[in-house]
């Protein structure tokens, strides 16, 4: 049994779990929903979940899930077993690495993305098969590109 109704899922649309509903998680969920994907966003803090865009939430495209992403039981509650893409987007590198590896090793999720800002950790987890994204790295690259453009 799944909590989620995928009957209207368009071809090519992915089932996504985002752990962490801070700035990054919340914006990301909105963009994924816009692109036609079905998103569940998990956070321990109800107030953080309230920052999700209300339209897609009331349409059922984004489902907020109150829970702890480092808990196996809570991940199961968010139907991690039927997910296509898993994104760890909390503010802590270590938590993201832990959560993404739980998805990878305990639940066989094919694609696990995690936000890892510190360079040695990013290198480590890229080597271990995670997609590691550095928010600060991307921001500084974008700024450098903009600087060159002038």
């Amino acid at each position, binding site marked *: 049994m799944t909590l989620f109704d995928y009957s209207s899922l368009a071809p090519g649309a992915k089932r996504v779990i985002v752990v962490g509903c801070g700035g990054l998680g919340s914006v990301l969920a909105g963009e994924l929903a816009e692109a036609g994907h079905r998103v569940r966003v998990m956070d321990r803090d109800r107030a953080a979940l309230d920052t999700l865009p209300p339209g897609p939430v009331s349409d059922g495209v984004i489902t907020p899930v109150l829970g702890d992403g*480092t*808990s*196996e*039981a809570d991940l199961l509650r968010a139907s991690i077993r039927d997910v296509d893409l898993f994104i760890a987007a909390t503010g*802590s*590198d*270590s*938590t993201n*690495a*832990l959560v993404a*590896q*739980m998805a990878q*090793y*305990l639940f066989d999720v094919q694609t696990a993305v995690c936000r890892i800002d*510190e*360079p*040695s*950790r990013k*290198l*480590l987890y890229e*080597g*271990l098969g995670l997609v590691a994204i550095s928010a600060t790295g991307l921001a500084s690259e974008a700024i450098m590109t903009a600087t060159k453009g002038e």
Partner: protein
Amino acid sequence: MHVVIIGAGLVGSSVAGWLIAAGHEIAVIDRDADRCAAMENELGSVTVTGDGTEGEVLARAGAARAEAVIATSGSDADNMVACQLARRQFNVALTAGLVKSDDHARLFNLLGIDAPINIVELITRRIQEALPIEGVVRLMDIPGSNSSVMVTIRVLPGSAAVGRRVRDLTLPVGTLISLVIGRDGTAAIPNENTALSPEDHVVAVTNIDDLDRLRDTLT
């Protein structure tokens, strides 16, 4: 040998003191400068102030020549990252990390962390051993099996199992009684004719789902 310890808290300090007394060289990493200073008062200049989940800080602590890294912080996630960095970036032979939840202990095993130390389980086990009540003490999870455990169960004086031979007990299928330890402490490998006495400790391997039935049979 050289050992890097992450965390200058109670466990980190205790392990550090023990290793120094045993003649080893150590470095202790902690984010908190005050905790580092307190430890240096006790043990000399052995600390590195910084984040033990960063390669550069581990390098400063001498991880490249360390034979073991022991992660004792209060965060499962940080302990995991420190152990993985130690192994992958510095080729440390032995990694040990404290872990507080069963989920994470299972993950640590899958990740190849040599010694995941499940502190909640350890403490619970000591409490079970200390309490003078019947019950099951889990000795170990059988490696390579998802569901087999080794346990010890105390035979209570009023139990229906008292005086019965092993072959007459109705044990759950697949349960193996491997050792019987008498109240005087003598351990014997039982055969089917071994009779159980009050206060015997029965060591058995069984399926985790059959634990309650096994306890009911013996207590």
